[in-house]
């Protein structure tokens, strides 16, 4: 079976005034369908760069990244946009909902870009809102919702086109502990019930603890890849890779 994500010796360089800065030093990582994993690392470790590459927002300088077996380097910008639209669901720390649009319209937005008709779109968006537990507030603007509710809208939006991958960047970072736990439980349920692959990028050991596999990044390299042991979560581990 083809792995959902396969990164092979991925290097990412950034040009800066001081010269070239290497953010990723050859990362190899395979994620199978249905996995529930977290990518950990302190700020500056390169985990954001890695997330951007996994999310097809950025491309590797060298090395290959295959999504469901397709080398993303062979895809046009439009094809990458299509992949982000239908294959990947993004969830951000700051929710990143469009403030002008209602909760329903926010959830329906990815379906606008995939060409779903208005009636189907609204029906599905309503169903998704209900499935994340805020079906009774479709007309609310993001500013009228609490942080937890906004993140639920964001999760519903990420599911709009039935993606294979949910990619969450510090999804609980802007939430209180209790709400954070609820959102993580929502990811767990989606992973177990719908077999959606979930990748959470975080620096929070408590978040990583909720996942099945932890990948620690340090200085642009994979430092640890394995189960969420206490040592792994708190960084007291020998390098495994």
């Amino acid at each position, binding site marked *: 079976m083809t792995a959902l994500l396969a990164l092979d010796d991925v290097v990412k360089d950034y040009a800066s005034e001081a010269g070239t800065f290497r953010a990723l030093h050859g990362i190899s990582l395979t994620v199978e369908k249905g996995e529930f994993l977290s990518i950990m690392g302190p700020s500056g470790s390169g985990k954001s760069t890695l997330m951007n590459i996994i*999310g097809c927002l*950025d491309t590797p300088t060298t090395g290959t990244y295959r999504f469901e077996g397709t080398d993303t380097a062979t895809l046009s910008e439009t094809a990458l*946009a299509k992949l982000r639209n239908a294959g990947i669901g993004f969830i951000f720390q700051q929710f*990143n909902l*469009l403030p002008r649009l209602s909760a329903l319209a926010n959830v329906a937005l990815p379906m*606008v*870009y*995939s060409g779903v008709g208005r009636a189907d779109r609204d029906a599905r968006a309503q169903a998704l809102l209900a499935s994340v537990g805020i079906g009774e507030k479709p007309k609310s603007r993001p500013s009228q919702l609490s942080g937890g509710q906004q993140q639920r809208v964001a999760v519903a939006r*990420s599911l709009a086109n039935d993606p294979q991958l949910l990619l969450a960047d510090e999804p609980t970072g802007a939430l209180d502990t209790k709400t954070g736990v609820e959102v993580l439980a929502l990811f767990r349920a989606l992973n177990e019930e719908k077999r959606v692959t979930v990748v959470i990028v975080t620096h929070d050991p408590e978040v990583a603890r909720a996942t099945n596999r932890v990948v620690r990044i340090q200085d642009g390299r994979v430092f640890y890849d394995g189960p969420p042991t206490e040592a792994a979560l708190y960084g007291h581990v020998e390098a495994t890779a």
Partner: protein
Amino acid sequence: MIATMLAEAWSALIANRLRSTLTMLGMIIGVAAVILMLAIGGGVQKQVADSISGLGSNMLIVTAGSGRSGGIFGGAGTGATLRIDDADSIAKLDNVVAAAPSTSVPAQAVAGPANWATQVTGSTPAYFQVNEWTAADGRIFTDREERAGARVAVMGQTTADKLFGANDPLGQMVRIKGISFTIIGLLAKRGQGFGGQDRDDVIVVPLTTALRLLQGNFFRRSIRTIAVSVASAEALEPVTDDINTLLRRKHRLRPGDQDDFQVANLTAITDTLTTTTKAISLLLAAIGSISLVVGGIGIMNIMLVSVTERTREIGIRMAIGASRAAVRLQFLLEALMLSLIGCGIGVAVGTGLAMLAGGAIGFDTKVTAFAVTIAFAVSASIGIFFGWWPATRAAKLSPIEALRS
């Protein structure tokens, strides 16, 4: 998809009502200016066209050929070659509205103690139609009076003034060459002609009467001129040719014989004035267009600001799958919508102003469908043209950078 994007563009404009309104203001002023200028230009053109037709723009003058006494040519109109039935035949030609045969003699008019030397014209009621001349007071004579040779006269205002001063000339008698005429009408004032002559210094009597009583024997059945009113300016040329053919046949002229008549028109004057007024209209439209372009630049500025402000939104949209083309389309639609709504309001404002201006300066300032169509077409082009750069800037944003902002 387009419908959704239109709805989104609309909601984006609504969300920034003040800014959208201010942006549209440029468009509104520009379009209103163009509409107003075109309307005034059209009004000027129509005004000038009316004035020219008052001088007889769609008019042909057929004059009799030269009379000849031995080797001496008398000049145009001195011959006895035009006859009343020539006018009847011309009146039946295609595109001829009316043909008025007329003859004219200088005469001393006497009314009571006053007398005045003037031009006495004999013609038919068609004369007034061709010259677009009406009675300001009383009436002009009828066909029946004309045929019967009635001794009635209508008088220009200068003549009336000279003969009657402040008194009402209607119903009074005037003696011309010893014959008494009853004055039945006072003509509307016309002012000076191109040559500076006073066109209100005239007495018009029925042609039959003039031929019978005022004109010398030699000319009894012949007339000096036939004024022909033609349906349109375009028909002037063909009608001129038709009249030439008709009169040559009627006068039994052989090929090679010289015409015993001339056909003249006033198109040279008309052409000059038309060119002038067209230039005025163009100038006015150009002034309006400048404000339209300024309005377009306003849209571009605001759209650029909008793109900068909404960088994060663009990043989010790209992350959830908007292609660059979709982002570009979104901003283009917003610019287009701004310009078209601005145009709609501008047309309304311009039309209102044109009506006000028309009332104020007494011009017929009509807003034409053509002007409105042009305004919308230009506005749409401006929206696309000036929206393109901001939209492209939005589309070129890197999603990562945009999300980080």
